[in-house]
């Protein structure tokens, strides 16, 4: 059962990484224009990446 003491923190670290990534997506404005961003990725002429100004 001692393996739990290793695995549990490890799984928590993994989940925290996910949470940090989610936090970054909010901070960098990736939910400001879902419709537009979906289209930008398909068109080479459009600047891609989230809008830094919003």
């Amino acid at each position: 059962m001692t393996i739990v003491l290793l695995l549990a923190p490890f799984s928590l670290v993994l989940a925290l990484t996910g949470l940090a990534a989610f936090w970054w997506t909010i901070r960098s404005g990736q939910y400001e224009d879902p419709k537009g961003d979906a289209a930008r990725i398909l068109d080479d002429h459009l600047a891609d990446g989230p809008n830094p100004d919003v």
Partner: protein
Amino acid sequence: MTIALAPRDLSAFVTQDDTDHGRVELLVTGARCAGCMAKIERVAAAAPGVSAARFNLTTGKLAVSFAGRNGDPALIIDALEKEGYPATPFDPGKAEAAHDKEGRMLALALGVAGFGAGNAMMFTVPVWAGFFGQELDPSTRQVMYWFAALVATPCALFAGQPFFRSAWASLRKGKANMDVPISIGVILTLIVSFSETIQHGAHAYFDAAVTLLFLLLIGRYLDHKLRARARSAARDLLALQAPVATRIDDLGVERTIPVGEVEVGDSLVVVPGDRIPVNAIVEAGGSDLDNALITGETASLAVGPGAVVNAGALNLSGRLVLRVLARSEDSAIAAIARLMEAGAQSRSNYVQLADKAAALYVPVVHTLAALTFAGGWALGLGPREALLRAAAVLIVTCPCALGLAVPAVQIVSSGRLFRKGVLVKTGAALERLAEVDHVVFDKTGVLTEGRPMLLDAPPQVLAMAAPLARASRHPLARALAEAAGCGEAATEVTEVAGMGVEGVIDGRRARLGRAAFLGVETLHADETELWFGFDGDTRVRFTFEDRLRSDAAATVAQLKAMGLTVEVLSGDVAGPVLRAANAAGIDRWSAGLTPFDKVAVLDRLKQEGRKVLMVGDGLNDAAAIARAHASMAPGSAVDASQNAADLVFSGGLLDAVPFSLRVARAARSRAMENFAFSALYNVVAAPAAMFGLVNPLVAAVAMSGSSLVVTLNALRMNLTGGRR
């Protein structure tokens, strides 16, 4: 006189960012797809002086950066309009609200709660397995609980902040809203779980505390998103009536400024087709003014030097130079503003369904929990077991379903209305709308289109006058030209401001305009008319009337079928009001009312115990809109009315009124069903918790289950609530 459209000076909308480059935000309409987005960005970036352009397809806003400190938004707007995308500059003050801090906070809280719920459950699932006989040894169980506590406690404390804050604010006002039991439930659950874990007990509810918040935050977040979308759509409607004024300085240089910067004593220029921005006195020029938005009157008013003009009037025919009498804030007629304030206050006393439920729920459940504790102890359970059962009562009676009962329904119904072009400002508005039993319409711009239409005229007479009408910009002349169809225009046309238009048709000189312009006496002062005649020939008279909205009669019939009574209150003269009311099938009507009269009528109806829905658009309706039990305004209404109204509907159809009423009524039924279900659930769950039949697994399943039922019932709103 033809008016060349001078290039607009919109530099007032350009702001400077930190690096001292100019920036402007434009609201662009008509973009639907990725192709449009690419085109808009290309066109904008190609405009002179532009360094970068970025279009947000979701909100329809185009952010433009200039290479230098300043740039000319008008050039970009013209370029976009050529491509078929009408654009309007956005007031920098209004654009800042786009920064949605609260939405980001809620999204983060939701993410944290989701993380906490998932990971705390990872540790409690092995414990749940123990309830099926696969006994976990107590020390391992305690390790699991400590891990769960480590994850769930910080997450619950962080994610619970929106609830804690709202609960605290409500408690300080001496009231208890739904967030109070939620906050108490979460905090008490954590405390009891810690004490259980420390004492090696089996009943810790760390996962339940954070799961409760997760489920509730989903509702909160969706609700916020929807409202933010409705609010920004409402702002866009207002931004489209871009409030700018053209000021001329002593040197005669014209410059466009935001209306807010207009000072008393300034000289302003108002060209035909623009609205008078502030209360002012005419210095030079003459014109006809359309006061429909202010007084509801359809007949236009001739003004000349010395006349006082009111903010909101539409300049119809001539260029006016005005001297400003009042600033923009003072202009919107202080008395009306005061009336509106009083109305809004009386309305804020309205108690929402959810708060009514909370007022019942909070004392009952908390008394029950206290009784469980006292009774359990008295009957020999021991303080620890008694406290545990009391906590179980609080957890399992679950404010979750109750907390979601109303918001879930409001989210779904607002979304349904939003897709039909109806913007709902607040959730309370829908509840008030559902109670309405009497509908009051304004005439001009609500029952009617708000623009004149030619009443039947002999075709040959119409064909004679049409060439001259085609050469004029006046709305009456346009209505005449529209009725006549395509054809030739008159030559050598001169427009005499405030009088009419003169020109040559097939070599004969002719005039079209007011009775005085053609040298005749008018007989019917209450009718909107236009006279036409060739020089030295007989004069013919055309009459016009504001066109009834195509579905006005059908709408009134629908409302009557729903058991509502309908009435018209108008500021216009009796004749047109009577005709419009008859055509729409409304028996009760009043004409010639001032804004104060309208409020008085609403107050009288209120005293009779009627719940009134006011549908209006003009400045003269704004006070009544704020006063009524519920109110709606079309998207073409003045901003004061739109701001005061609960619901704003866009599109040319009045059908939005009965549709909104049906949705509001269906929403109330769904909310009541949800309350009934929550009550039933609590009647079963509370005794179970009191007799110690609840364990952490049962609590988790019951909580998610009841939330799911309530949410699914709310989703039924999408199926019912009426067709269009």
